[in-house]
């Protein structure tokens, strides 16, 4: 092995280590974000019984609708993984395709959620109504806000892939984006179970 290739190999290793550090840093951010969601879950758990004479979760949640929402988000998490697999194979067009599918599924999820919120508010069940509804809108809305920022980020990244191709920097950022997106689906498991399913049981 010539010294030139050795230097190149060393360079690669350094780059790889820098990427690992960035990914770990982002991972730590995700874990702190978990703590944010945990606080909101704790608030919801404590005051979701305080309906102030208004409706409880059993009265206002439409489970089949939420199930469709859940599958839209779950499918988008899966297609995001497929985009990462295409990235590994350096297939730029496939990355763009799967990012597009993920984006559309994410937008569908967001639209379904906003439509749900709209109907709740239109029926007079806004966040001002009771402690239960305040904590419900804060918890689910914070998740929705994360999804919104994820979608904006995804659109920007699709632009980068389109313009610059799968350069090392673009690949690193795509990895972070996929972590973020999978993480949001993990949070949704608990929103689906604790808010919607427990709510429908009247717990």
């Amino acid at each position: 092995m010539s010294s030139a290739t050795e230097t190149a190999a060393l360079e690669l290793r350094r780059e790889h280590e820098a990427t690992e550090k960035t990914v770990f840093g982002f991972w730590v951010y995700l874990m702190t974000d978990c703590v944010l969601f945990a606080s909101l879950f704790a608030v919801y758990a404590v005051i979701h019984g305080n309906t102030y004479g208004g409706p409880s979760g059993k009265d206002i949640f439409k489970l089949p609708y939420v199930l469709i929402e859940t599958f839209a988000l779950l499918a988008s998490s899966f297609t995001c993984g497929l985009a990462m697999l295409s990235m590994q194979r350096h297939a730029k067009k496939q990355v763009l395709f799967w990012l597009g599918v993920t984006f559309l599924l994410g937008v569908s999820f967001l639209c379904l959620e906003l439509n749900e919120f709209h109907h709740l508010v239109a029926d007079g069940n806004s966040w001002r109504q009771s402690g239960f509804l305040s904590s419900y809108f804060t918890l689910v809305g914070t998740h929705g806000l994360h999804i919104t920022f994820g979608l904006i980020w995804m659109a920007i990244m699709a632009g980068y892939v389109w313009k610059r191709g799968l350069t090392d920097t673009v690949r690193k950022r795509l990895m972070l984006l996929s972590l973020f997106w999978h993480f949001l689906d993990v949070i949704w498991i608990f929103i689906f179970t604790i808010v919607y399913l427990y709510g429908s049981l009247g717990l």
Partner: protein
Amino acid sequence: MSQKPLVSEHDEQHLSYGKYTGGFLASVALTFCAYWVATHVGGDRNVLAGILALLAVTQFIVQMVLFLHIGEERGPRWKLAAAAFMLGVVLILVVGSIWIMNNLNYRMTPQQIIRYMQSQDNL
């Protein structure tokens, strides 16, 4: 020797089609199970809540391992350590809040609550 093997050796080596598909199918199945338990199974609500919690935790582990690739890193497992610490903080935060607030609720007599509400109305 070209650079190619070095790149693939140090690249995102954990990604595979099977893991994502498996994770997706398992998550769909677990979500359906949870939905079915909540809508079609009768019985003690606390038992149902326990089953639902178990299904959620199972799906959490499935997605953490198959989508977020936790525990697959070599060398010191910093990601796993950060996740374990997060779980500890989350448990203390959530369980602690519920415990304290329930206890507070339990220890507050109805008279105290009425007096408190009246004092709030005066504001």
